[in-house]
């Protein structure tokens, strides 16, 4: 079995999400499964499908800082995408590489990340439904949707984390407990740089987790590939017409 391996570098939130959709549709139309590694430029806040932008994000602060805001097609919570490696994995639900039930499929796809952690001497563990932790602290959040018979799972792997900045950009239900929440999140979240005690770069992370996925799915031939012109055009169309559209961003 073949999986296309794409490294699309840093792009806007709208293009990143548009490309996820374009590639998922390609898999739904019979294309090979896809593993994609990417980052965010500018930094961005994404919110879950079931969240409301006005309730979660200080949009004027984001504008002031030049931070994109986007709504995902996947559930889950708000994420500040800054110093991180993001992956997307798209595979037909019927493909035997990944177990069908939702919980198990999260765990199977996260297996590539856990395997990558071993290269770094970091013991990453899966915590249902969608978290990966190191020493009890969250290092990766993952989110999945299923459309057209295809699983799209995307997730972030924190390279370093700025909790104070994140809380400047997010709205908190109760301002009075904001300081306490920030302290709690700082205790509960970690990054690969802080685990390693050195700066861990995006490029290094791509190499480590590419090897992780290759080892975890060792029956699979990963074929390094490029985004086709057609996929790129479709991704740009979705970025413009859907993901950056106010109807999508502020609906719910």
């Amino acid at each position, binding site marked *: 079995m073949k999986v296309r391996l794409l490294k699309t570098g840093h792009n806007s939130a709208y293009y990143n999400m548009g490309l996820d959709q374009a590639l998922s549709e390609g898999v739904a139309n019979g294309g090979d499964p896809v593993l994609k590694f990417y980052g965010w430029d500018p930094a961005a806040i994404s919110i879950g499908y079931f969240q*409301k932008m006005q309730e979660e994000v200080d949009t004027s602060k984001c504008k002031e800082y030049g931070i994109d805001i986007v709504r995902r097609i996947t559930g889950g919570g708000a994420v500040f995408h800054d110093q991180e490696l993001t992956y997307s994995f798209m595979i037909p639900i019927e493909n035997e590489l990944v177990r069908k039930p939702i919980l198990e499929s999260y765990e199977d796809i996260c297996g590539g990340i856990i395997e990558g952690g071993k290269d770094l001497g970091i013991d990453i563990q899966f915590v249902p439904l969608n978290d990966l932790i190191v020493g009890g602290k969250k290092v990766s959040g993952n989110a999945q949707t299923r459309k057209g018979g295809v699983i799209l799972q995307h997730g972030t792997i924190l390279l370093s984390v700025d909790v104070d900045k994140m809380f400047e950009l997010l709205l908190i239900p109760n301002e009075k407990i904001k300081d306490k929440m920030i302290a709690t999140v700082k205790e509960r979240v970690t990054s690969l740089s802080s685990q390693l005690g050195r700066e861990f770069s995006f490029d290094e992370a791509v190499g480590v987790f590419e090897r992780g996925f290759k080892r975890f799915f060792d029956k699979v031939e990963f074929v390094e590939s490029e985004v086709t012109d057609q996929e790129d055009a479709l991704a740009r169309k979705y970025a413009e017409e859907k993901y950056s559209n106010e109807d999508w961003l502020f609906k719910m």
Partner: protein
Amino acid sequence: MKQIIYKVPGGKLLKLKAHLDGNLLNGIEIRGDFFMYPEDGVMKIQDFLVGKILDEQFVNNLSEFIMSEGIEVFGFGAQDIYDALT
């Protein structure tokens, strides 16, 4: 209209907007950082809940509806909706 933020024990953060007339639910919006498969299940659940009474049948009826529609929810359950509303 009542806005309710409810932390599901061991689960996600539910944000509800509910139109309540006593214990009669006239409408509800369910938001939060949960997962639901398929995603449009949330609209079905919201529609189902219109006109429901918050009584001892509520949790069972909602659970059965979610199951019968083949909706899978991660992060809250029927009991949490009830607890958040009462």
